[in-house]
């Protein structure tokens, strides 16, 4: 879907007049749900010929209320996730502002949760995450801020197609991408947006409405 959007943007840039006749970029590039929200990641084929899709493996973390959060927390629910750390001086607050837009738009929709993984478990203790969530003014049963075993956290990035590495040469010491990622009730990654790009997130919010409508018959 993203490549289609990029292609369309490039085409419209070539035909500059396009921008003067149409206010917004096309909201929907395909009307086909499966095409719009493909199961992302490498696929494998069993000897029997069945497709094995990439899916999020088992995990266990602790949230800002000291509750254990596992895949079971998200049974039958979709969730939006990102990676961050409290002392992050670079893109994190920018991404958080966009995650807040998702939170606010779907605050009353029980089928969608939000999950932010801390990449700095040493400093981002449960108490620190609690304080962070409080200062953001968000509800802990809707938006989980996770800490836990550092190795497990760093092992999860790539499952969500997010890059994160400790790097003493970057501000804050951790280099990571600001993607926000949609995972469905079957643990499949279905879409993502660049959390540093408000326009991309605006489109993502529209897509999420469609996704929730299709999966749960209700976007609100």
């Amino acid at each position, binding site marked *: 879907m993203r490549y289609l959007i990029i292609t369309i943007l490039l085409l419209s840039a070539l035909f500059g007049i396009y921008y003067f006749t149409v206010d917004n970029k096309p909201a929907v590039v395909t009307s086909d749900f499966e095409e719009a929200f493909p199961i992302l990641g490498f696929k494998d084929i069993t000897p029997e010929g069945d497709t094995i899709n990439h899916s999020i493996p088992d995990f266990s973390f602790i949230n800002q209320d000291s509750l254990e959060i596992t895949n079971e927390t998200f049974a039958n629910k979709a969730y939006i996730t990102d990676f961050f750390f*409290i*002392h992050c*001086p*670079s*893109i*994190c*607050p*920018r991404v*958080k*502002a966009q995650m*807040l837009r998702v939170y606010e738009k779907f605050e009353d929709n029980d089928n969608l949760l939000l999950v932010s993984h801390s990449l700095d478990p040493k400093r981002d203790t449960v108490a620190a995450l609690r304080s*962070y969530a*409080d*200062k*953001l*003014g968000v509800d802990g049963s809707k938006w989980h801020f996770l800490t836990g075993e550092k190795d497990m956290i760093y092992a999860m990035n790539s499952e969500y197609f997010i890059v994160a590495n400790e790097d003493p040469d970057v*501000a*804050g010491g951790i280099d990571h991408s600001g993607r926000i990622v949609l995972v469905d009730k079957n643990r499949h990654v279905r879409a993502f947006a660049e959390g540093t790009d408000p326009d991309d997130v605006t489109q993502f919010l529209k897509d999420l409405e469609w996704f929730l409508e299709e999966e749960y018959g209700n976007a609100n």
Partner: protein
Amino acid sequence: MIISFSNCEYEAFSQGKALYESQCANCHNENGQGLRNLIPPLAGADYLETHKEEIACIIRYGIEGEMIVNGESYNSQMVGIPILTDVQINNIINYINQAWGNNYGLSNVKMVKEQLENCNK
């Protein structure tokens, strides 16, 4: 064409604006609104006016502990930006003091240099 025309318009404190957007806007936002109770706003922030003599030091060395901005309490660590020169810090201060409807007066490099020599590090 439209873009190149609009670039010809005079824009005040353009270096300060560019520096703000690359060094400060990740946290304080392009619109100076900050982020909820995590990161204080700069737009309309009384702190910029009441703590004029601290702003250059905060930009260079950061700040920790509770601060009150427009009656709200904030308590998150801000890291300093040591790579900025005195002149660049002055440009940023002039930008944030005039942007978003702020009207907190002009700074100059001499004032900034004096301030930076007396920071509580």
